[in-house]
């Protein structure tokens, strides 16, 4: 009898454990509780937020933002007396998206972050899947105060799925010391054609020691040279008007890929992976003269090649002679997760608002970042950008103001490539062909042809979101 009771109790305990462990997948999103207030309303709100931890997913070097958030919390203890902020570092935007998707699919909603930093490509799917809060009501009144196009990539129809975090242009970093050594005028690099000529001259005068720049044997070549640089500024297209594949027939794409082909086939680019020690060693050895890349590269130069401080200068990215625009600006976003039972949507909005509109706090933080050789971007608010602080000279750039160049380089930026939900896969397919090209397995013409063929086979048509 006792054995029977014991066995039944064990079974009941086990079954209870299994059902509890499977969790309560409540898919009902309580969006009204999380409904953001407008940009004007939140200034007057003195709501006190409940105790807890506000979790943000971030990639790159988000630990430096933590310093801003900690200082901000101390100043806002009247509304968040027992709130802490934690930034969880992820590998990248797609890693953040994967974590959120899997967490949501498993039903463990309490493990979802409150907000995340994300790029336009991954933002689209999360937004359309209703995992992000529509912040149109909040940010629309503020649009005029932000740099042009700040919210474009987060806008789908009448919804805005994230708050703009940064808009950074493509720029040209060049080692002034090398240019003086080989007596080359850097202003010749205002065009892509001039940039290539400079590369040839550097190679000749240095007997092959100095390269114009680098080329990554992996996926970063497409990411930094292609999608954000040469293709947008050549007015290239991957997809046609109806979403059909046109990359292999588009003249702009051909112009962009041919420019890369000339640079690589003539030996002007050192084949080495970006962000790796070998590249930094090459920079320190004076083997790399320029970087045609996004403004974000500033933080990697300052952090990893401090020995070359004072040697570098910055220009706006070169433009194709016949087209006339520089690379496309890269936007990143701060999205608030539509978390069931979430308590901090409004707090996230206030956090974002103060980060972009509180000039003094922003300047204090940037000064701290400069001291640590840490990353920071220009503000996206016109009012802050107009301040002289954002024209201050930088020791690393030999007295030139990197902040001012970053601001002015936005003026002639190309329009970004159209973002579609199929872009994640398209980027992978295009990058694979470029990787094979860099490895010497195929010519650039073959690579372009294969891009078109494989995009049609695997994707067919892209969905153009209006």
């Amino acid at each position, binding site marked *: 009898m006792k054995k029977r009771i014991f066995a039944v109790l064990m*079974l009941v305990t086990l079954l209870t454990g299994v059902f509890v462990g499977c969790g309560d997948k409540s898919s009902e999103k309580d969006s009204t509780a999380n409904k953001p207030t407008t940009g004007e309303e939140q200034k007057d709100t003195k709501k006190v937020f409940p105790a807890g931890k506000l979790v943000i997913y971030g990639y790159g070097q988000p630990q430096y933002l933590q310093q801003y958030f900690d200082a901000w919390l101390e100043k806002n203890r009247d509304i968040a007396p027992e709130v802490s902020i934690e930034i969880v570092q992820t590998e990248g935007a797609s890693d953040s*998206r994967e974590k959120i998707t899997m967490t949501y699919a498993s039903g463990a909603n309490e493990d979802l972050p409150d907000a995340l930093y994300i790029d336009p490509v991954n933002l689209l*799917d999360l937004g359309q899947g209703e995992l992000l809060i529509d912040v149109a009501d909040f940010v629309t009144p503020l649009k005029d105060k932000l740099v042009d196009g700040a919210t474009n990539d987060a806008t789908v129809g009448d919804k805005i799925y994230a708050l703009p975090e940064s808009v950074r242009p493509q720029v040209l970093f060049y080692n002034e010391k090398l240019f003086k050594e080989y007596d080359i005028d850097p202003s010749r690099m205002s065009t892509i054609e001039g940039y290539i000529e400079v590369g040839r001259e550097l190679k000749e005068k240095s007997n092959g020691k100095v390269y114009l720049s680098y080329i990554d*044997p992996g996926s970063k070549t497409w990411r930094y040279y292609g999608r954000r640089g040469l293709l947008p500024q050549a007015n290239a297209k991957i997809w046609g008007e109806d979403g059909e594949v046109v990359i292999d027939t588009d003249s702009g794409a051909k112009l962009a890929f041919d420019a890369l082909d000339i640079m690589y086939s003539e030996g002007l680019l050192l084949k*080495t992976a970006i962000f790796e020690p070998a590249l930094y*060693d090459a920079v320190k050895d004076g083997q790399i003269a320029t970087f045609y890349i996004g403004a974000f590269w500033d933080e990697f130069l300052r952090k990893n090649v401090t020995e070359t401080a004072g040697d570098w200068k910055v220009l706006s990215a070169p433009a194709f002679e016949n087209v006339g625009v520089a690379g496309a600006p890269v936007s990143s976003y701060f999205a608030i997760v539509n978390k069931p039972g979430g308590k901090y949507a409004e707090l996230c909005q206030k956090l974002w608002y103060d980060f972009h509109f509180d000039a003094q706090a922003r300047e204090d933080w940037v000064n701290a970042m400069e001291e640590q050789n840490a990353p920071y971007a220009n503000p996206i608010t016109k009012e802050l950008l107009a301040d002289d602080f954002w024209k201050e000279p930088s020791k690393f750039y030999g007295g030139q103001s990197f902040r001012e160049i970053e601001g002015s380089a936005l003026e002639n930026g190309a329009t970004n490539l159209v973002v579609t939900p199929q872009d*994640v896969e398209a980027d992978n397919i295009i990058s694979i062909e470029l990787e*094979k090209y860099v490895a010497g397995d195929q010519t650039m013409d073959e690579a372009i042809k294969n891009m078109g063929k494989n995009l049609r086979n*695997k994707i067919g048509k892209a969905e153009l979101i209006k």
Partner: protein
Amino acid sequence: MGKVLEKTKIRLAGIKMTIIQTLKKYKYPYLFILPFFLLFSVFQLFPMLWTVVISFSKWKGIGKPKSVGLDNYKLLFKDYMFWDAISNTLIYWVTGVIFILLLSIIIAAFLNYNRLKGRSFFKTVTFLPNVCAAIAMGIIFSMLFDENVGLVNEFLGLFGIESIGWLTSTKMSKIPVIILNIWRNTPWFTVIVLSGLLNIPREYYEAATVDGANVFQQFFRITLPSLYNILFFCFITLTVDSWKIFNEPFILKGPGTSNVSLFQYMYDTGFNLFKMGYASAIGCMLTFILLIVSLIQFRIMRKQDNI
């Protein structure tokens, strides 16, 4: 008709009684294995079945899966990346089986050699690669095989050999993966083979020595046949492990799909491209391949046993 129904009812009642009696008789053993089967059902069986279900759908992980019939499987046959991944994995399997088994036997034979001094030390050192974290070792190997500053090219340079683009060349990128795979997994199988060697009675070798057999003859006529079952077990395990290889090609990524494994392709498709349905189809195909390979292996073993 009525009689047939009557008979069926009686038969069903009989089966029901048998089940009830069996459950009553073995209720405690069943209760003890119930936790495993509950956890297995929830965390393995259901996900496996769900994978098969969503392999017939298009799903990004958000929202509801959309049924697409056999489209994912049709795409598999046209997808050159899938076939590249299969051929890469096949190469990892063949090289893994040959080199890991061979090295395991040789090293285990040395460790079993009765005149070897410091045997404990050598056993410890032999097992170290298996203990090291796979990702950490992968990162170190990527530095060793770096085209510009890697130690391997520096070493080859001493002999006048030009730098090789190990991880930047589609032809060479599999080599670092194979070397890392062999280096990490040989110790594990060495230990298994060594346990087999220790179970071979010494009298066989003594009798062979008396009969005039040399070391090689003893090895091929006594050691290898005695290790047959152990080696077959190692072969099966290596096969499954090789087809599931992930860490090494993930860290030592080569250009394009030059060294991508099938498992890695499945992971990239599901978690980087968010094509869960297609990734599930790849998973089902991988399971199918492993099933076929295992069936062939067991058939061969059964034939050998019959001989």
